[in-house]
């Protein structure tokens, strides 16, 4: 038998250190980093670092050798090399003051495209949708960032455009499932093509940009994410029958910006729109370019009939279609002895998701100017509601006539009338102020959290808790708590416990007659001891001058119940402990690891519970004092 050499196979072959990889690819470290980000290549932690590093235990980063091998033939790397040469030529031309040469070079600079890399990384569309979380979060961050010397304005503009296109799509298709306003920003969850996509949007404030952050890395990621989202959006729009890229309503960009400026026009409708100019949509289409201030367009602008108009009307069309093309029900044949018929799960019209889609469709919301419009608008539109924004209305009614491009006479009375007609439709007003000076009768006044909670619960939450100036109920994460603690359940439990106690007192009598006499005997013994103790305590407290309250006796009752319950539990637990003896070492380790996590969760749950109890006690005490 031949002697096998060490470090010739296995982990030593499968993994390659970073330095080796860079040498093999003949790239600079920065270029290597970029290609890794584009191609989604990441370091690995081999099972045995020593084996992978050929016997050395020095800390090293390992890559999978085949990943690097694939990179050898990557066209983008060739472009990197071309770019290096281009940079050299350009710098030489600039050094010589050869401006025209430099310009020519710059025009023909080598450019790479990432579309094939996107396709390579996500062979199917669903793969791409599944991996959108990070892409969206990054794009939304850059959309909110100011342009600086590190981040060019083009980049932020592109990011903002893509973000708005994404939101416009989600709103039109009513795909939003969850909203969570956290201290970091707003989390959204949409269900796109059956995949959960969660992204985080920062609040609209200038971001704090730490100085020690390498923006090149983030921009490289952004470059890839931009390409990814472009192609994903194209496909999504195409599947939804909408033209991509959506046209931007110039008037609305000036007014509100955001998703309401996007005209989502269907591919089928496009032709008809061009022919029939009587419909409202046609006006938005054709006249938007020439006369941005015509009444009808502005009407669109105000109502946000928008998103409102275009989205909603298109959605109406869809609805009509849906009405005509009602789903056929497949009723399964009753299964016989010979034939067993499977029942296929079918889309249910009354499913919570379907309800959520049209939760707000009968309502028109008047959004106060103090409310962050982009959050509320997106949510309401996704639930089928209509939005009227105070800030947009103000802009419409108090237009600066001098600033108009063509000195057109603005008929303010007519405008006022339009607005009044519009305001009549408003059912809810969302405002975020401590108090309101005047209220319009017939409107429901709520704080913005009502919108989010309604979506998360999948039903219209009672309004009274969210009234203006009221202390809001806690805003809970739709994804629950990591430790499995549910603050709402706790509330229910405590309510339940009180009623349970009464019930059990009645039941307790019956139990005595039952067959658990033995246990009763035991209990009696314990009771005797307890009573003695109880008596002692009472005496002590009397000596101190405190009335031994009835709550204490209640507690005692509860305490009585516990051992009865725990006797069985104890036995079970004991048996469990005994069975643990017979576990193998491996099983024991695994079991203990699992128990660690479980214990941690358990302790967190317990601490939260005790805190809650304490708080409630304090509250009760306060009430009593009052």
């Amino acid at each position, binding site marked *: 038998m031949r002697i096998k050499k060490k470090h010739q196979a296995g982990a030593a072959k499968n993994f390659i250190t970073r330095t080796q990889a860079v040498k093999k690819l003949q790239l600079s470290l920065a270029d290597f980093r970029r290609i890794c980000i584009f191609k989604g290549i990441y370091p690995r932690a081999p099972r045995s670092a020593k084996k992978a590093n050929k016997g050395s235990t020095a800390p090293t980063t390992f890559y999978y050798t085949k990943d690097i091998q694939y990179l050898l033939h990557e066209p983008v790397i060739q472009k990197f090399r071309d770019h290096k040469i281009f940079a050299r030529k350009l710098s030489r031309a600039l050094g010589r003051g050869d401006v025209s040469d430099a310009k020519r070079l710059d025009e023909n600079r080598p450019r790479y495209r990432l579309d094939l890399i996107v396709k390579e990384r996500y062979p199917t569309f669903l793969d791409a949708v599944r991996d959108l979380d990070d892409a969206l979060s990054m794009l939304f961050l850059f959309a909110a960032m100011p342009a600086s010397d590190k981040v060019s304005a083009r980049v932020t503009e592109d990011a903002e455009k893509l973000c708005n296109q994404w939101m416009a799509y989600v709103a039109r298709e009513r795909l939003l499932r969850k909203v969570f306003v956290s*201290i970091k920003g707003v989390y959204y969850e949409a269900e796109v093509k059956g995949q959960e996509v969660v992204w985080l949007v920062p*609040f609209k404030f200038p971001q704090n940009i730490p100085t020690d952050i390498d923006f090149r890395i983030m921009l490289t990621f952004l470059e890839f994410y931009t390409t990814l989202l472009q192609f994903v959006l194209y496909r999504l729009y195409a599947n939804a029958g909408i033209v991509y890229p959506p046209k931007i309503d110039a008037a609305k960009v000036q007014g509100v910006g955001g998703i309401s400026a996007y005209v989502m026009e269907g591919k089928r409708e496009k032709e008809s729109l061009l022919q029939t100019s009587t419909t409202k949509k046609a006006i938005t289409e054709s006249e938007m370019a020439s006369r941005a201030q015509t009444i009808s367009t502005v009407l669109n602008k105000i109502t946000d009939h928008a998103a409102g108009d275009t989205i909603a009307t298109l959605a109406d069309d869809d609805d009509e279609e849906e009405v005509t093309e009602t789903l056929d029900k497949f009723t399964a044949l009753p299964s016989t002895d010979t034939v067993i018929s499977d029942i296929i799960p079918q889309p249910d019209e009354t499913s919570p998701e379907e309800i959520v889609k049209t939760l707000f469709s009968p309502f028109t919301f008047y959004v106060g100017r103090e409310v962050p419009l982009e959050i509320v608008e997106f949510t309401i539109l996704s639930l089928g509601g209509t939005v009227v924004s105070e800030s947009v209305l103000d802009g419409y009614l108090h237009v600066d006539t001098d600033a108009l491009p063509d000195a057109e006479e603005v008929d303010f009375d007519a405008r006022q009338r339009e607005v009044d007609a519009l305001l009549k439709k408003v059912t809810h007003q969302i405002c975020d102020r401590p108090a309101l000076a005047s209220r319009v009768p017939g409107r429901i006044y709520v704080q913005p959290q009502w919108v989010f909670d309604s979506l998360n619960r999948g039903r219209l939450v009672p309004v009274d808790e969210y009234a203006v100036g009221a202390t809001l109920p806690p805003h809970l994460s739709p994804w629950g708590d990591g430790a499995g603690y549910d603050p709402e359940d706790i509330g229910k439990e405590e309510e339940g416990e009180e009623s349970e106690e009464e019930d059990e007192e009645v039941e307790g009598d019956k139990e005595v007659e039952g067959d658990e006499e033995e246990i009763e005997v035991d209990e009696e013994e314990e009771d005797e001891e307890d009573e003695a103790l109880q008596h002692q305590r009472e005496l002590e407290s009397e000596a101190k001058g405190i009335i031994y309250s009835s709550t204490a006796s209640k507690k005692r009752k509860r305490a009585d119940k516990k051992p009865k319950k725990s006797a069985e539990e104890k036995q079970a637990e004991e048996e469990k402990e005994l069975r643990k003896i017979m576990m193998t070492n491996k099983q024991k380790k695994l079991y203990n690891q699992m128990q660690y996590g479980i214990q941690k969760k358990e302790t967190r749950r317990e601490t939260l519970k005790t805190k809650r109890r304490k708080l409630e006690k304090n509250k009760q005490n306060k009430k009593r004092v009052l």
Partner: protein
Amino acid sequence: MAKRKLAGAKKPAAKPQTSVQITGNQQGSKLENVPARAPRLLIEDEDEDNEDGDEEGYIDDEAEEAEDDELEYESDLDEYDDEDDVSEKFEGLLDGAISDSESEDEASDDASEGDGEEDDADANEEALHFGEDDENEEHEDEAEVIKNSVSDDDEEDEYLSKYSAASEAESLSSISSDQDDSRIAYYTAGADGGPRPIYHEIDPHYSSDDSDLEDMNTIGNVPLSAYDEYPHIGYDINGKRIMRPATGSALDSLLDSIEVPEGWTGLIDKESGADLKLTKDELELVKKIQLGENAGDVNPYENTIEWFSSKTEIMALSAAPEPKRRFVPSRHEAKRIMKIVKAIREGRIVPNKPKVRPEQMVYDLWADDLQEQQPHVMHIPAPKLAKPTNDESYNPPEEYLPSEEEINAWNETDAMDRERDYLPRKYSSLRTVPRYEDFVRERFERSLDLYLAPRVRKNKLNIDPDSLLPKLPSPQDLRPFPIKCSVTYRGHKGRVRAVSIDSSGLWLATGGDDGTVRIWEVLTGREIWKATVGDDDEAVQSVEWNPVKDSGILAVSAGEKIFLCLPPIFDDETEVAGQELLAAGWGYAAQPAPVEHINKEQQCKWIKPSTKLASQGVDVVIVCRKTVKQIAWHRRGDYFTGVSPEGANMAVLVHQVSKHNTQSPFRKSKGIIQRAQFHPFKPMLYVATQRYVRIYDLSTQSLTKALQPGARWLSSFDIHPQGDNVITGSYDKRVTWHDLDLSTKPYRTLRYHTRAVRDVRFHTRLPLFCSASDDGYINVFHGTVYDDLLRNPLLVPLKVLKGHTVVQSLGVLKVAWHPKEAWLFSVGADGTAKLWTS
């Protein structure tokens, strides 16, 4: 020879002129050669010059020029016709002068050249130059004309330039005709009888062409020999005769030939008719030309002159006239521009088209719609970020808000070690929520994680932890087994180290550190009998009842002594039988022992007890050399072993009660012996050292097996009543079960005690065993051994008996099973013995 060479040398110089003449463009030379020509010709020459200057040549014009040239020649011929004969004479004269063998044609050529050699040199060069230029331009022009036929625009230009050239020529001719009349002084009768104009004497002023040619012979190409008969040799520029210079007599010439004057060549100057003299330098030059060397005074190694240097010159270096192409719009460019214009008109090129950024080109990337594939095994997708929980809410439930201590703790911990990267905060309304300071940083860190963090696939077991617990029969189904402590036997002071129950199961014997042996009534817990055996409070190490029914013998070891007692608790018959059995040995001991036993006798003495001990019920005392830690009876009750770990090769001794005899089975030390025990029914001895349990066959006196429990220090072991299984307990907390049929290694190793295991015991009848430990607990197990060899023993933990208190880190020291019931007796460091019943 010299003459011939000269003529040969002249030939190449003459050639260029002939070639120029063939092209028919010898305007320059013509002007010089024919100064007094008809005014018509002169005008035509000027015309041609003009056209040259115009730099526009056309085929038509060329044709005209050619015609003009023909006319010129004709006129020339006319002039010279009458002098034909004369020219022949000249030829002959020259022939004689230059060379005899030269042909006439050549000679004529040479002569004509020779005449105007110096004068024509410059002009020839010029002509050559112009000719070349013209040639080139002609070609260009031809090409242009062909092109012009295609493009109309160009034609217009052509016409314009032509027209202007023609008009210029006309104006010039009119001026020259005016001047003609003024030049004529008077007319005389010519040779043809017509008036012959006589011109004014030409005043060759500075601007005149011939200013430097004074007294020039003007006979032109006519050979000088033609004037041989005349006293003159030609005419000067004014038409006056140039008289032949005076020639000396034949003698003079002979003298001259003998006495060669300086510079003599023997040639006659055509111009003057005198001897042609050449200076030394001139001769040198001719020689150089002959040899093909550089004729001029040229230094081949001259310093380079940097004409084109970094210095900016004020004046232009080249005086060359600007070429035509610099002034004329390029047709080629025009053509290219027209192409682009056409492309723009046709829409093939869209000017000022906004550039489409390549990244903005979007299409359906997933059009081919692949089926979802299983990702590569080695691919590890990046984990998604954890979903936000309630405590991240802007308005969380109040219990999530951190307390003061939690905030402090959070602030104190390093950012790396924090469980959460934020502190929960509560805001009363949405409008009060500020920005999140670390938003950018968190995104950045996520990016870093995505491309920089080594990934590893961790298989997360998504199973119920309880499923890991082995499936065992419920202890409830395996009853009876001891559950609770029913009786506690108190009385010992200090630790109780030994316990034994008699075969009837009624009497419990215990021994402790206080040096007493006590017998208790099992059910009531009453102390019945007590004997103090240890001298000076020596601890009782071991107490064992004789296993034979109704023998009533109790073996007690304390210190180095073993006491065989007959406690007075049985009926008289039993007592008497026991006494007889013990006493019988004295007789054997009295007999002289065999020689080999003498030594052993000395080491282990069987003596009668003192009266004090005898009164307490002790019948026999065996004195050993070392402390006897353990006693174990043979099942027949005649033999028992005593183990004294320090005894080296005498550590295990086998005592025979009936003969008061002691044997040492081992010659050599086998290590520190912990325990020794007889097989339940086979003649075998099991001996436990610190690490091994050795099994000796007593009949063959050989080692059959050595078990390796894998423990560091065994404390105890016990043999299953069927003899095929052994359990061991060790001080390193392990209990092992050995199946002797399987291996020398343990079948199961169990670790459940938290302290050293002190004792392990099998029940003699029921499938039960137990282990006692210093942690104060006794673990009771069910252990079924099947007759089927293929089935492994079934071990089920049944109960943990907790009751003994731990004193000075010692817990339960010894246990004993009731011979019939599932009862267990245990003694501990707390000074009590306990009975555990089911």
